[in-house]
């Protein structure tokens, strides 16, 4: 239990947390703003990674490849959105269907289950090697942090526009939205596209960072993203009220999640095989808290409601 081992691993943990933070922001958009649990992400993360790696290997510029990964992610969101709105399939099931289909699609994109990319041969934007001993502007932590800030700024702007407001209203109250002339089906599809676009981009960064795209790289992404959302809210919701800060707190939540995970492994409390089990249990408990609160403290809430209604 050498603390230096833990400290040495921190920059890498930070980078990973930041990259997953972009996925978490995508999940925040569907789960918190649109109020749907979208399971597409388990597939679209890999789609993003696969598209990025395959394009780079075939000689494309890294930015073009990442743009393509983002667009591919958006297409997966479009598919889920159409399953849900046009075909009337419940959102969760629609996401599961897309996710399953994407397994085949991702295999087809990569040609096999795993595709590596050589750091020395290609100009990667981020990499697990660019963490120490590189100029700060090449440092993966810096690069992903800047990416995150740009994305947050874009999303902050977007959700302040007429279209973005319509999307927020759709997630909050569908009846009201339609009564105000909002096409709620369109809003949902658009939200799913934006969300999965971010997840695809996150997958592209993750694949570069680890040096390969893998058919299983998205497994459990929804749970990791939810964990980040929940941790971010639990820690920062009292101080961060502005929408941009809320998105940042999700990214910070993702970093915290990876730090906790790394620490738990370092302390030898759980071995790495059990990490997903641990994550699932922690997220389950956090998701239960609002329910328990309403169930066991409901008297207090009724009283409060009564007072505000009077």
């Amino acid at each position, binding site marked *: 239990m050498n603390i230096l081992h833990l400290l040495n691993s921190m920059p890498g943990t930070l980078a990973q947390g930041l990259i997953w933070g972009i996925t978490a922001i995508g999940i925040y958009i569907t789960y918190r703003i649109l109020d749907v649990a979208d399971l597409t992400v388990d597939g679209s993360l890999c789609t993003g990674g696969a598209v990025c790696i395959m394009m780079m290997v075939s000689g494309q510029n890294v930015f073009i490849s990442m743009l393509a990964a983002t667009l591919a992610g958006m297409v997966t969101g479009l598919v889920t959105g159409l399953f849900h709105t046009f075909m009337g399939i419940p959102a969760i099931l629609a996401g599961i269907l897309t996710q399953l289909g994407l397994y085949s699609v991702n295999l087809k994109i990569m040609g096999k289950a795993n595709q590596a990319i050589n750091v020395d041969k290609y100009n990667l934007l981020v990499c697990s090697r660019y963490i120490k001993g590189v100029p700060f502007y090449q440092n993966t932590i810096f690069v992903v942090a800047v990416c995150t800030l740009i994305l947050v700024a874009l999303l902050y702007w*977007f959700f*302040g*526009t*007429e*279209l*973005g*407001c*319509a999307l*927020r*209203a759709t997630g*909050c*109250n569908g*009846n*009201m*939205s*339609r*009564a*105000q*002339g*909002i*096409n*709620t089906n369109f809003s949902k599809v658009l939200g799913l596209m934006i969300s999965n676009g971010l997840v695809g981009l996150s997958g592209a960064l993750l694949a570069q960072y680890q040096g390969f795209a893998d058919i299983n790289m998205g497994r459990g992404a929804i749970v990791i993203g939810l964990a980040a959302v929940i941790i971010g809210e639990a820690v920062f919701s009292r101080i961060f009220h502005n929408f941009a800060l809320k998105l940042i707190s999700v990214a910070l939540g993702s970093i915290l999640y990876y730090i906790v995970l790394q620490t738990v492994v370092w302390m030898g409390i759980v071995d790495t095989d059990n990490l997903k089990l641990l994550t699932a249990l922690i997220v389950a408990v956090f998701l239960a808290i609002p329910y328990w609160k309403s169930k066991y403290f409901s008297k207090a809430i009724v009283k409060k409601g009564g007072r*505000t*209604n*009077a």
Partner: protein
Amino acid sequence: MLEIKNVTKVFNPGTVNEKLALDNFSLTLEDGDFVTVIGGNGAGKSTMMNAIAGAWTVDAGQILIDGIDVTKLPEHKRAKFLGRVFQDPMTGTAATMGIEENLALAKRRGNTRFLTPGITKKEREEYKELLKILDLGLETRLTSKVGLLSGGQRQALTLLMATLKKPKLLLLDEHTAALDPKTAAKVLETTEYIVQKDHLTTLMITHNMKDAIVHGNRLIMLMDGKIILDIKGEEKKRLTVKDLLQKFEAASGEEFTNDQAILG
């Protein structure tokens, strides 16, 4: 203004729960009409409004608003013509959004929404002035989340939202039923004020017979998905609760039972 022609709606057809909610229903409103609607529970009042608003498609018949056939238009497209306030104060507003944001959403009813700002500075000033007519102090709380407001405040705000962009037809579905008597009276007073000021064509469902008599220039009573009473003009002006009860008994061939007494 509004023409409902022979509209029929059956819920859960072919099942034991089959319900003929609108039975060859017809109603025509003139420009500027303020029609109050009464009827017992399950008479089809809300169904009539949902048919106009397009919550689902009707089984038969036709609905025209200002001469435009809207029978096949989806709900969000008909919204262009309609202002709506619902019975449940939670239904008409977005709780997690601010008062001004809710108003800004309503201001854009019927417009295509683009990447232009969701709310402008100029609008904020406008909303501040507008909220003053509610006399609830909301003009100082523009950025407060609507979820923090009381039921009465939310209903008053919904009313403002429904009329912010002048609708061709205002639909009020027992919009004061969930409020305490004092708040209900106030929201109703504001309703009357806005309807008069903007000369709105209005359909108002109410569970209160007195309100139905006092307000509007025409009164209809529904039963089993049909209009069984239609009182307008001079007759409506002179109408009393006692007349209404007598007319009801004559029209329905039933005693006015306790069950239906929720009307008054």
